[in-house]
């Protein structure tokens, strides 16, 4: 599990020597987007119940601990994800709509060694699908890990898209298994 993060970590160590400028809100000029979705054989309410708690990311492979405060309150709730390699990701909630079965959050702090992105925001939503099933859609918008021109390949747009896509793909597969197993 958490192959993506671990792989990213290994790549990251190799590029630390480049002494990256502190990213902050600087970023490359072109924002990227990723959308991944999956059909789950369960009613939307049941699927939403599995992800509705902003402070429970146990359904995402590689996350060993979620801590935080603020419940599901937009602009208040924050969480820290701890990965199985010890790295952490700080996130905050900025939209939450239980009626729409959707929430949106951003990453406030992550090392590009862990996830090679900057200025990342994301929305996850449960939508009704045919036959009483559900579709879960996970979308992200972000800049690459290298904030300036001429990024190294490990921190370019493709690397960012690949890393985010892999997280979403694994997360959604895992969620599907968990919900369909009735857990």
């Amino acid at each position, binding site marked *: 599990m958490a192959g993506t993060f671990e792989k990213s970590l290994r790549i990251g160590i190799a590029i630390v020597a480049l002494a990256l400028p502190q990213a902050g*809100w600087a970023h490359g*000029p072109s*924002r990227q*987007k990723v959308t991944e979705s999956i059909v789950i054989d369960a009613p939307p309410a049941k699927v939403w119940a599995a992800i509705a708690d902003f402070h429970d990311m146990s359904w995402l492979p590689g996350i060993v601990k979620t801590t935080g405060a603020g419940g599901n309150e937009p602009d208040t709730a924050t969480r820290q994800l701890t990965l199985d390699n010890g790295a952490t990701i700080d996130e905050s909630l900025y*939209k939450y709509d239980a009626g729409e079965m959707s929430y949106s959050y951003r990453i406030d702090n992550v090392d590009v060694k862990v996830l090679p992105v900057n200025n990342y925001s994301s929305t996850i939503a449960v939508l009704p699908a045919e036959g009483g099933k559900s579709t879960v859609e996970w*979308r992200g918008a972000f800049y690459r890990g290298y904030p300036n*021109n001429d990024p190294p390949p490990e921190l370019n747009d493709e690397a960012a898209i690949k890393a985010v896509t892999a997280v979403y793909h694994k997360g959604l597969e895992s969620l599907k298994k968990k919900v369909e197993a009735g857990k």
Partner: protein
Amino acid sequence: MIGLHGVGRQVKPGKALVLFAALCVSAALCRAAVGAEAFITDQSGDEVSVLDLGLKHVVARIPVTGKPAGIAMARDGRTAYVTSPEGKYVSVIDTASRQITAKIAIPDTPLGIAADPSGGFIYVAGFYQPRLYKIDLAAAAIVATVEVGASPSGVALSPDGALIVTADRDDDQISIIDAKSFTRKSTVKVGAHPFGVTIDAQGARAYAANVESNDVSVVDLKEAKLLGTVAVGKRPYAVALAKGRGFSTDQYGGTVSVFDLATLKPVKRISVGDYPEGIETSADGNSVYVVNWFSNEVWAINAETLAVTAKMPVGDGPRAFGTFLRETL
């Protein structure tokens, strides 16, 4: 134009043409009847979508490499200037023929751009250096350069072409530049990370959308003074002005925040598509067009009623950062 647009919306295009012809009894009406287009920079798609705002669909796609983002429409609507941040050039597009007629190399990553009303010059911000470049279009060359603040993003021009304003994102300020001497006259501190900047029709005020402080700064250009600040939705990107109101695209909010320009008080938030970015008011002031980056659509808002009147698909990752509308005559 509002009446004619209304007619166009309710009948099939063929019938609308007949109606337009019937109404074409004065030069003004004929002009209005011809219609309007939006030139949308589809950054992910590496193209410019030409959206017919009467037909409400894309009528041409112009391949533009280098992740096109910023755009400035010439006042006569005959030429569009598009920045490619990753290609480091400006593409000059003949709007009628949909052809790229020239590419002008920029020594830095270009994003924000504005076109002088005389048609002789364009102004392009280099994001990293950071500088504003004055480009003589006849010579297709940089003829003057001025230092501005860090990470200049939006570039706006007063209607008479005398003043240029840059939103210096990472310095939380705008720079006010005298176009003729091409020197910076002043800077004004605004909110956190201004991105888009818009000057009103009188050339009196600039409105900067502050991405990080979730507000819009209102600056008196003559006095070079901050007049006020309006709270808007999350991550505002740019501002349009219509019917005495300001309209900001709130990227994270998925909204357009409407505020009163006299009182600087919020009026309404309108739900739009995902990650709205570029925004501009139609020439007649009746419609506001909103470009939704994530959901690949342009939405039209009635500036008076604030109702959404059209949702039009475009290419992938549309930004249209700048002025992108033209009337087709």
